């Protein structure tokens, strides 16, 4: 009874280590492969298109929604202490430091990470990845690298857009509905922020971009078991990368703020 428990725990620890090692190896190979020839510009451009341009609407919509609802809550909360003026300051702090990067990261893990997992997973089970190998092409170099590069450029860019949109989301509620002065809002929004807050937001976005692309590609690349496997790959990629986005967000905040 006790022995089987220890056995099982041991086995699951080992398999978790295996998985982590496999991910680390592939991530390492991706970093190395970035600098390898030949450089495939067309492929990279396609990825920018798929990852970047097509994600714009969803990032804008979620940023507006979240910043508006957050502003409503802040206005309500601070009204309890007759401190409505603080709402804009806290709104700015929250959007730049947390909501912008995290919302963008989470939405993109659903939007592009899952697409990567599905695409590579299909290629894996239909032997297209083996065909790449047979045509003397490293799948890491051909498939992972363009997605990785596109993702680490696009996620920070979209984070900036999300912050900008978040500013106007808060504006609509606090100025439009709560009747604060537009000039005061624009001033107060940045009051608690320094330039380094934007830098921290971009660092976070960069790390989230890496997580999204690497986890998505890895889950796709390791797909097995036909249609069922292809079905599981995107789900598992979204869950895994969202989890790691939130975990790394905590540590990045702790590390970068002190």
């Amino acid at each position, binding site marked *: 009874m006790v022995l089987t428990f220890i056995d099982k725990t041991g086995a699951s620890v080992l398999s978790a280590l295996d998985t982590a090692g496999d991910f680390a190896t592939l991530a390492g190979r991706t970093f190395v492969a970035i600098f390898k020839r030949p450089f495939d510009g067309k492929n990279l451009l396609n990825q920018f298109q798929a990852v970047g341009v097509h994600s714009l609407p969803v990032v804008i919509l979620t940023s507006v929604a979240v910043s508006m609802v957050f502003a409503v809550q802040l206005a309500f909360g601070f009204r309890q202490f007759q401190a409505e003026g603080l709402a804009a300051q806290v709104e700015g702090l929250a959007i730049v430091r947390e909501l912008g990067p995290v919302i963008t990261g989470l939405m993109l893990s659903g939007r592009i990470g899952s697409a990567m997992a599905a695409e590579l997973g299909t290629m894996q089970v239909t032997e297209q990845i083996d065909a790449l*190998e047979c045509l003397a092409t490293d799948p890491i170099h051909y498939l992972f690298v363009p997605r990785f590069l596109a993702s680490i450029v696009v996620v920070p860019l979209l984070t900036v857009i999300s912050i900008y949109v978040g500013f106007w989301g808060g504006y609509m509620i606090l100025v439009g509905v709560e009747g604060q002065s537009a000039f005061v809002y624009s001033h107060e929004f940045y009051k608690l922020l320094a330039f380094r807050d934007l830098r921290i937001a971009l660092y976070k976005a960069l790390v989230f971009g890496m997580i999204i692309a690497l986890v998505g590609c890895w889950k796709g690349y390791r797909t097995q078991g036909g249609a069922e496997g292809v079905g599981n790959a995107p789900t598992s990629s979204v869950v895994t990368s969202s989890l790691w986005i939130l975990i790394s967000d905590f540590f990045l905040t702790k590390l970068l703020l002190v």
Partner: protein
Amino acid sequence: MALIDVVNLSKAFGPKVVLSNVNLQVQEGESLVVLGGSGTGKTVLLRNIMGLLTPDAGHVAIEGKIIAQLKREELFKVRQSIGMCFQMAALFDSMTVFENVAFGLRRHLEISEEEVRSRVDECLSMVGMKGTDKLKPAELSGGMKRRVGFARAIALKPKILLFDEPTTGLDPVMTDVIGRVILDLKHELGVTTITITHDLKSAFEIADRIALLFRGECIACEPPDAFKANPHPVIQQFLRGDADGPFLQDPPPPKRKSQEAHP
């Protein structure tokens, strides 16, 4: 020295032994046909030759280079001289036929776009698929996909061509077409080939030697005439295409007399 040398190759997946102690030599310019029931490890054999799988024991050597011991760059060099035709063609479905065939050319040769185009046209006409270059793989039938797969495999002028069940799942006419394409490729390009097939007719046309895989072992590897005359009961049963005999692990359902079936 043999161009392809498979030595004591063994491969198991977990407890399931797929190949045990397989030995095959293929000389330069020779075509070997590998026969065997479904699931006897024919594809596994080819994947070991391509270095997509690593053997548990034994090795595969191509031109004396042991595949499993090569560095990745060296392995890619060797693979450039091998064309692999997959069982389900494995075309890149996001690309057109043209881009599929041009893939290796664009990546490995420093040649102009016109040269790529003329080489792709040449390869497509060799497999009888001229004029399909703008189509996507989803718009092709099974036989057409296989032939585009051939064109992609021969684009880099490989020394070795590997065909994995090129005719399985096709109608008899298309089977004959594919058989002829393979013969043409063999004569025009003078390549060394390994063909896996269930189609005995084209097997005997293509083969210089025929091997039969049975329960993970290679039980014969000899010229077609000797193969036909081989008294081994498994070989004779395979040639007859009969369910009764030592070939199957589980005994087949008994044969009914047609009068019994329809009284």
